[in-house]
């Protein structure tokens, strides 16, 4: 598409582009150099600040925290998908006493900020007698309610994007509503929506980071703890760099999966604006 926006550049334009390109690169390099220089000048790369991260005990802790992050993500991802499917079924039900409450449920949980949802679980419920709510449960439940609601809408957008003839033909050969949904619509919708679904899972992974605010002991919690250790030079920037590297690699890995699926199924998420909008709204 973008090649339609401009002519193939002629010799003068090429020179101009080269200049602009060079300026862009210089600007970006300058920004990075400035940040790096600040890091160096404030002693962020001194051995003292990194000493903590050479200790095997600390490595073990970081591994533990990474696993904690992945556990919350994994469980929340599976539960969100299940909840999303259940809500989808409720949403397309022809009984209004099922579809209307489901609609309200979905809209409600999409509108409440996820952090507030986690706080309701962690701070709100225990005094009422739900004393089993640990930070882990709060994080996973919050993620599930929120992302399950978003995913159910993504599924629905997927079904609505299918040609009407699909359902009509299925009904014509005598399939029941359940059969049409299960055997005709859902498989196609899930395939069409696969990249969007995986992007939403990236959102789930990113949002596990909120857990540290409700004291779930994941990567950022550890970053904060290590960052406030004066005996090791308060290495908050080194520890943020370490945790960021882990978080971003995990997210990029998952985003890579989304891209792979997108290329394989050759259906970009941009094709379904509604679904993309849903993911944007949840990010």
């Amino acid at each position, binding site marked *: 598409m973008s090649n339609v926006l401009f002519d193939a550049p002629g010799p003068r334009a090429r020179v101009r582009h080269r200049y602009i390109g060079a300026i862009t690169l210089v600007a970006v390099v300058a920004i990075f150099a400035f940040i790096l220089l600040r890091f160096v000048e404030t002693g962020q790369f001194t051995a003292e600040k990194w000493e903590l991260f050479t200790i095997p005990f600390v490595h073990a802790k970081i591994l533990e925290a990474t696993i904690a992050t992945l556990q919350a993500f994994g469980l929340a991802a599976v539960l969100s998908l299940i909840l999303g499917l259940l809500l989808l079924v409720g949403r397309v039900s022809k009984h209004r006493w099922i579809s209307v409450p489901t609609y309200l449920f979905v809209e409600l949980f999409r509108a409440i900020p996820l952090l507030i949802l986690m706080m309701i679980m962690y701070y709100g419920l*225990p005094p009422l007698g739900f004393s089993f709510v640990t930070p882990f449960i709060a994080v996973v439940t919050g993620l599930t309610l929120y992302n399950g609601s978003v995913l159910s809408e993504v599924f629905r957008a997927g079904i609505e994007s299918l040609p009407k003839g699909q359902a009509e033909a299925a009904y014509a050969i005598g399939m029941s509503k359940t059969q049409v949904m299960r055997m005709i619509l859902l498989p196609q919708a899930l395939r069409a929506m696969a990249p969007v679904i995986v992007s939403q899972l990236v959102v789930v992974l990113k949002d596990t980071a909120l857990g540290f605010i409700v*004291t779930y002991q994941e990567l950022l919690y550890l970053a*904060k*703890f290590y960052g*406030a250790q004066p*005996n090791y030079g308060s290495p908050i920037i080194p520890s943020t760099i370490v945790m960021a590297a882990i978080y971003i690699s995990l997210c990029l890995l998952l985003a890579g999966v989304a891209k792979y699926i997108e290329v394989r199924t050759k259906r970009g998420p941009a094709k379904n604006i509604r679904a993309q909008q849903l993911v944007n709204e949840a990010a």
Partner: protein
Amino acid sequence: MRKKLSLLATAATAALLLAGCAGGDTTDPGSSDAPAEVTLTGSPTYDAMVEADTVRIGVKEDQPGLGFLDAGTGERSGFDIEIAKWVAESLGFSDDKIEYIAIPSANRESAIVNGDIDYYVGTYSITDKRKEQIDFAGPYFITGQGILVAADDDSITSENDLAGKTVCSATGSTPIQNIKDNYPDTETEEFDTYSQCVEALKDGQVDAVTTDQAILLGYASQDSENLKVVGEPFSVENYGVGLPKGDDALRGFINDMFTDGNDTWQSIYDETLGQSGTAVEQPAVDAY
């Protein structure tokens, strides 16, 4: 048999450590009461501990001298930690049966109400508001609100100089409440742990950190180049052991332990907070 041996070993190590540091004139906390003699009935918290064969203690892990976790070695130290161990030992749990859980100030009540922990020892001021949700044994220590500033800052010498300054403390703590209520001209910043506030002070984001002086002394002694404590305590804070509400049996047990502890308390104090040179006596228990 193995359990007994390891208990003995722990007690012996503890005794050695304490003796080594203090010149051999101290009693070892807890080892005088043999764990087998624990008689505590009617305490659901204790029953749950016995059932699980572990005791889960809520602590702070960012307060040098009181409750501190060394990030490099994973070892905990400080006055509150020793008090927590003392309670555990008199309940019949050796060090290796203790599971420490770090809980920031704002989450203490919910952690106790939730049952995430069996009891909490971590600069926990006894207040009536908190007593609505939980119970306290003790007090086992008395301090007051103090002020920590940058070592080169001469503009703040007491709490009367706080007008127009930015002061940081922990979310949900008594000191921040005091500042908000009684010092309306003072700006506040809140983080969930004091160490975050101390970092903000060192970075110049805030002018002072306020909380109990005992806590501040710990930070100042850890980084005396950059930090100093100014003024006299301007409130009274009684530290207690946070317990689930209504567990009077356990509360009574711990109160008796404090009262009948002889010089155990003093030896713990001398080993930890006393290192800074200030002498303090054990406060009388308030068995409400």
